[in-house]
């Protein structure tokens, strides 16, 4: 994609006008998707994206130029555009690139672009039948497969020259159950940093389809969730979105560096209940939010964000590292070459605790059991967050009672972290897409079952 000679010339060009750091990020991405509805494959497409982004820093300010033209002439022109936007004294930069390869933690056995279309179509149809078999009340099933293979390369003026190949495969099942003009949905979307071998053991596609259908049928027969402030037990897996929204974004340097986070200036302080330990980990083999190197070329790692309630680390990218006077943490991520990277999450979860799940429910005052969560969002400045409950049940007299629908949970991050009073033992991770200023990136969220003493629940 890019030779050392070209990279060196382009980096020098970028620094001609006084920039003190330059980086080239090249990307070639092949992706494909197939979707099914009404029992038939209804669309199939393949896509190739290709381009490069050049970033220049001068002190705490940055410039980013991106283009599709990755020829030496195209990259030089882009570097010149970047240099033109930097004001300062030009210096001749001595740049010496050294190639490096980071260990590949994530083995891929079957590149998904090479898997025959007919096999994928068969998988989609099997999921469709499995979902419909759950109940005659299932009136529509959408199943889709998506996969990407990305080759990326990074060179920077500090001498780094490295790259990686990233492969993702994901299944998405969405079922609709209908009765008497009323309808409800259920969904499941497992994925991994893996090839098509994802479906040879790690993920059972028909089980996923059944899960989506069961959720839709259960919610169809559910009452509307009551509104009010109450204790909430959040199940493991995608329940981890609570931590992602309530805390995770507010620990990204993009907010912290400007004092625009409720957790800015709080390293070493208690920001959560003492039973809460939270991790952001890029090293879990083949996990959806994992990496070998981040999008700034740094080797990935496992970062302890909170330990027994005490704030230990922020997630910091190169530019904000300058701002904060701290080291970057391998957290620089971007959606693709059209975005400059910034600090983002990877696989972020509340670590397993010591509490027994049966006891968590049995000792819970009347409240809500959130079995399955939807997504949410947060304002890192104020800490206000929200998220949707996709499948909920009332807790009455220490037991899981009838299903309820349409609940959402809101609060402030700093408050909710302090109100976690139980953390179960069995950690589960779940996949999602996280959107922020550097675009949409694959992340895992996760936790064991946890309990929050009180949250505002929005219902009807």
């Amino acid at each position: 994609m890019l030779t050392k000679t070209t990279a060196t010339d382009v980096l020098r060009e970028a620094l001609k006008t006084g920039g003190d750091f330059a980086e080239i990020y090249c990307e070639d991405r092949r992706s494909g998707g197939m979707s099914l509805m009404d029992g038939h494959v209804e669309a199939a497409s393949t896509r190739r994206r290709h381009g490069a982004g050049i970033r220049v820093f001068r002190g705490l300010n940055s410039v980013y130029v991106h283009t599709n033209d990755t020829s030496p002439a195209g990259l030089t022109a882009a570097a010149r555009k970047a240099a033109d936007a930097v004001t300062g004294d030009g210096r001749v930069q001595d740049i010496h690139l050294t190639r490096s390869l980071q260990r590949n933690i994530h083995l891929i056995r079957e590149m998904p672009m090479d898997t025959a279309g007919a096999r994928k179509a068969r998988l989609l149809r099997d999921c469709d039948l499995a979902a419909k078999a759950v109940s005659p009340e299932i009136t529509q099933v959408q199943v889709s497969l998506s996969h990407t293979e990305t080759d990326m390369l990074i060179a920077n003026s500090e001498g780094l020259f490295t790259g990686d190949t990233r492969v993702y495969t994901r299944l998405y099942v969405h079922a609709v159950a209908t009765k008497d003009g009323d309808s409800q949905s259920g969904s499941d979307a497992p994925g991994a940093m893996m090839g098509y071998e994802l479906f040879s053991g790690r993920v059972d596609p028909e089980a996923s389809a059944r899960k989506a259908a069961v959720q839709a049928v259960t919610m169809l027969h559910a009452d509307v969730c009551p509104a009010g402030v109450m204790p909430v037990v959040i199940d493991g897996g995608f329940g981890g979105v609570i931590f992602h929204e309530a805390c995770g974004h507010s620990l990204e340097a993009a907010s912290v560096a400007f004092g625009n986070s409720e957790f800015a200036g709080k390293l070493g302080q208690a920001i959560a209940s003492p039973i809460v330990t939270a991790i952001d980990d890029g090293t879990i083999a083949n996990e959806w939010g994992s990496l070998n190197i981040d999008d700034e070329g740094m080797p990935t790692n496992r970062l302890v964000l909170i330990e027994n309630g005490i704030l230990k680390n922020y997630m910091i990218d190169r530019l904000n590292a300058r701002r904060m006077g701290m080291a970057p943490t391998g957290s620089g991520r971007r959606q693709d070459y059209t975005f400059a990277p910034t600090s983002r999450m990877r696989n972020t979860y509340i670590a397993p605790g010591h509490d027994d799940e049966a006891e968590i429910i049995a000792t819970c005052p009347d409240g809500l059991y959130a079995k399955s969560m939807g997504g949410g969002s947060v304002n890192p400045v104020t800490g206000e967050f929200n998220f949707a409950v996709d499948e909920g049940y009332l807790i009455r007299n220490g037991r899981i009672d009838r299903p309820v629908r349409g609940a959402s949970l809101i609060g402030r991050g700093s408050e909710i972290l302090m109100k976690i009073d139980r953390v179960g033992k069995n950690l589960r991770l779940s996949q999602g897409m996280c959107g922020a200023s550097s675009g949409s990136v694959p992340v895992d969220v996760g936790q064991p079952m946890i309990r929050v003493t009180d949250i505002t629940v929005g219902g009807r």
Partner: protein
Amino acid sequence: MDRNAFVSRLLASAAQRGVAGEVCYENGESFEASVKNGEIHQYNVADGMGLGFRVLKDGHTGTASTQILDEDALTQLLDGAVENAELVESEDRQFMYPGDDEYPELDLCNPELAAMGAAAKIEMARELERLTLAQDPRIQQVEECAVFSSVNERALVNTLGLDVSAKAALLGGYVVAVARDGDKVNTGLKMFFTMDPAEVDLVAVARAAAQEALDGLDGAPVPSGKYRVLLRNDVAATMLSTFSDIFSADNAQRGLSRLKDREGEMIAAECVTLMDDPHRAGSASSTPFDGEGVATRVKAVIEGGKLNTLLHNLKTANKQGVKTTANAARGSYASTVGVAPSNFFFAPSDTGFDAMAAKAGDGLLITDLQGMHAGANPITGDFSLAAKGFRIEGGKVTGPVNQITVAGNFYEVLRDIEAVGADLEFRAPGVSCFGSPCLLVSALSVAGKA
């Protein structure tokens, strides 16, 4: 390879293969400058192109796309698109369009905008930051402040004779003000979009962002219960954008919308008229042709509460035995063809904001809704969302409210709209551009204080 040569060769090879072929080509430039404390903080400049290709074989389409126009791409695109078409089993018939004799003349590329240099846009961002900080001593920071511009060209060419293109230029910006008072903190966002640089009113943008941040400093929840709700114009537009898929004939035909077979029925209050206007002046979402190259036209989707039509493309229209409404849409050059509105908005009345608050009497003015991507279900119409706003007491807007959720169902909201305001405002333009005046809804559920 030169783009025109590439397109000709690609279409010729499709014809040779015995399939109809269609190219969707996009080319654009963009600029964004953000400032912090008067200095350029981030500066992004980009040029980008993409070429999407689809073939029509036995009534099915397959799609492939690329960002490199070389020899390899020619074969990869054709082979890929044909293979994808052969995998499709749906019984729905797809079509390609030979083009119309006439297309509406729309002026979407203001030369003054195209001529605006980087320096002028950077100065605009600096000025917006200065103005915002100057609004009030409690506005102590600006979290984000940026100005951006883009010029985009899109072309559709196929083997049946279609050959159309359009170019649009846009200027926009946004500022997020941070208000602090003791321990209290709140943010306020205001965006602007225009095709005419002379129209930009930075003072108004700064004032709106600052006011939003200041007004919410003292927010508190209200007791849970049912409330009369006045949705501010931007919030109503956001809600429309979240649920706009219910008007897609594609979704209705597939059991994903409750509006299936309801054309001609009353589905909203009599005061509700919902327009789809692809010719709206000054909008980057306006277009002379839809995603299949059909000439666009203005239509009332809901008129006086009655559903006139759903939105169609050639496939859905054929399935239903009607004419296409020219609402075929591609998210980008790489997308398959779906359905989307263009400029989609509730038609305003002449009832001013104060009169709308008076009509509300006692209730809530909602000025912010969060979590739309998760807490709203476009299929069922249900929503349960974090909200902020103000109390309305005795017909007047009083104290700020936050940490509440608002829940309801969009199909019910349409029927429960009691009044429509005059202050029509549009959101960010994309494939679609959603707008609304403020809307008074008779009842929504609120969760707040116990």
